[in-house]
């Protein structure tokens, strides 16, 4: 009898944990959704800020985030996929591969603010790119590189070995097999990784603090060497600077909601692709 009571208590405790975790998710979505939706309008999405950040929209920040995200993905995607291909298809079992694996894992664990400092010292200062879209994109790109590598690796691993053997048996070379058989089969998985990393990059703030972001700019960025406004940094600046906390908090709610929607949308697509993929392979 005692063990049944223990089971009841134990199971209620872990159910409570699960419930609390989900509750927090809904609390965040509820508070930001309900207050953010009041601010969002067509004007909010398409106009530049006015009156010292207390009115108008956040369009430049949205555009800036898009640029930075695009730049980071363009930089990290080829590099990440190539690295995954090497590790999964070519890699001889050696200590070099182990070192590469270890460095990927460790890169994934580096605090985001350290990427910002690295970007500041290397891209802004050493290469002389200045505080710009380019510097910010590169810093963000290094940050998501491990995400893209591990997603691509998982996708490559999921491709059945028999497909490769069949291709090789027909006389195709290794590269032909990779390009025409393995990569197309792994594409949905790689895509999932890219989508998730877009969500991650769009919300990162610390790496762009010193490498790309500006609180207020007149007009839109003109080249990859110009400073840029970005949504996450805009939220931070609205909450910590300026003289009109009430109006600024309202705008920050709106920005948070946009960011949240973007991330939720990306996650939803990724989950959708993954579930379709799963049923594709396992019936």
């Amino acid at each position, binding site marked *: 009898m005692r063990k049944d009571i223990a089971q009841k208590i134990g199971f209620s405790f872990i159910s409570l944990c699960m419930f609390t975790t989900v509750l927090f998710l809904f609390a965040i979505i509820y508070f930001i959704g309900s207050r953010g939706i009041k601010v969002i309008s067509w004007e909010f999405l398409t106009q530049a800020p006015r009156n010292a950040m207390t009115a108008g929209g956040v369009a430049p920040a949205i555009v800036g985030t898009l640029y930075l995200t695009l730049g980071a993905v363009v930089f990290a995607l*080829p590099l990440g996929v190539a*690295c995954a291909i090497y590790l999964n298809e070519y890699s001889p079992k050696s200590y070099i591969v182990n070192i*590469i694996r270890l460095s990927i*894992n460790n890169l994934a664990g580096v605090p985001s*603010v350290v990427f910002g400092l690295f970007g500041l010292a290397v891209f802004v200062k050493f290469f002389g790119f200045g505080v710009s879209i380019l510097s910010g994109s590169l810093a963000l790109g290094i940050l998501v590189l491990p995400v893209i590598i591990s997603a691509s690796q998982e996708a490559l691993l999921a491709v059945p070995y028999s497909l490769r053997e069949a291709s090789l048996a027909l006389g195709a070379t290794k*590269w032909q097999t990779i390009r025409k058989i393995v990569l197309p089969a792994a594409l949905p998985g790689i895509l999932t990784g890219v989508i998730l990393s877009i969500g991650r990059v769009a919300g990162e*703030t610390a790496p762009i603090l010193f490498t790309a972001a500006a609180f207020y700019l007149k007009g839109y960025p003109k080249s990859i060497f110009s400073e840029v406004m970005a949504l996450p940094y805009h939220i931070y600046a609205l909450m910590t600077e300026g003289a009109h906390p009430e109006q600024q908090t309202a705008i920050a709610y709106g920005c948070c909601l946009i960011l949240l929607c973007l991330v939720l949308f990306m996650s939803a697509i990724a989950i959708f692709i993954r579930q379709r993929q799963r049923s594709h392979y396992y019936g």
Partner: protein
Amino acid sequence: MCLLKARQGCILPRPPNMENMIKVKERLYKWLFTILAFASLIFLVGIVIVLFKEALPIFKKVKALEFIFGKFWYPTYDPPEFGIFPLILASVWVSVGAMLVCVPLGVGSALYLNEIASHKQKAVLKPLVEILASIPSIVYGFFGMVVLAPFLQNLLHLPIGLCAFTASLTLGIMATPTVCSIAEDALSYVPKSFREASFAVGANRWQTLVKVVIPAAGSGISTAIILGMSRAIGETMTVLMVAGGAAVIPKSFFDPVRPMTSAIAAEMGEAPMGSDHFHALFAIALILFLITFVFNVIAEAISRKYRIKLGLSG
């Protein structure tokens, strides 16, 4: 070799020069991928070099031990004081607090997903946990600042809402999905036969869970906890917004604090390039990097051992 032989016997043999070209191309691609694969290693090494290079000048002015154990952080005073002990203490304070929240919640949720949830529940709950993981840290920070801080201040009659306690709670919520996903993976690796053996000798589900499944997945769960800790200690924007920012040694859980990450983020903009303050901030980043590096290496070592123990290939 046998591939080559097979090709010689096929119906349309390729002319020899084309064969050569293909071989060269193959080798070229292999080299290309090999070089690109080193990118992460290069970046990691680059980060280490940059941190050391920019941090070392400060250690010429302040001794390393004084820097780490100095009690006063007044980088802009004249003469300045560079003691980061309050910042380290704040980081530890906040991260330990976060662990108190995210370990029970994360591991508990993982157990729920693995033991109690039906297939349908799992199909809904797992994506929800993933979404919680994908919410940007700035949104957590904002949520902590405008919702949690005033709420806790009213509830507990705190003098100030933005403090170590609020930061711990916010960070804890944030690290929960990390802990949950890794712990859930570890639990799902436990072979079915372990459970069946336990049921066969008359244990119920809870006893099986506590005495068989959790010990078997123990090192995987500890990996999850270490990685959660690493995430909490390296998190920047959330603590920057929520922790309050006072760079003094905290006396209680409800004091405002300034963890290492938020000191870097808040002060780097004002520190003139190449000044002592600038180098001191890089030195903080170096220490932060080393701490998370050690955590990651430990987690890696544990998870490798664990895979061998359960007979999974590393």
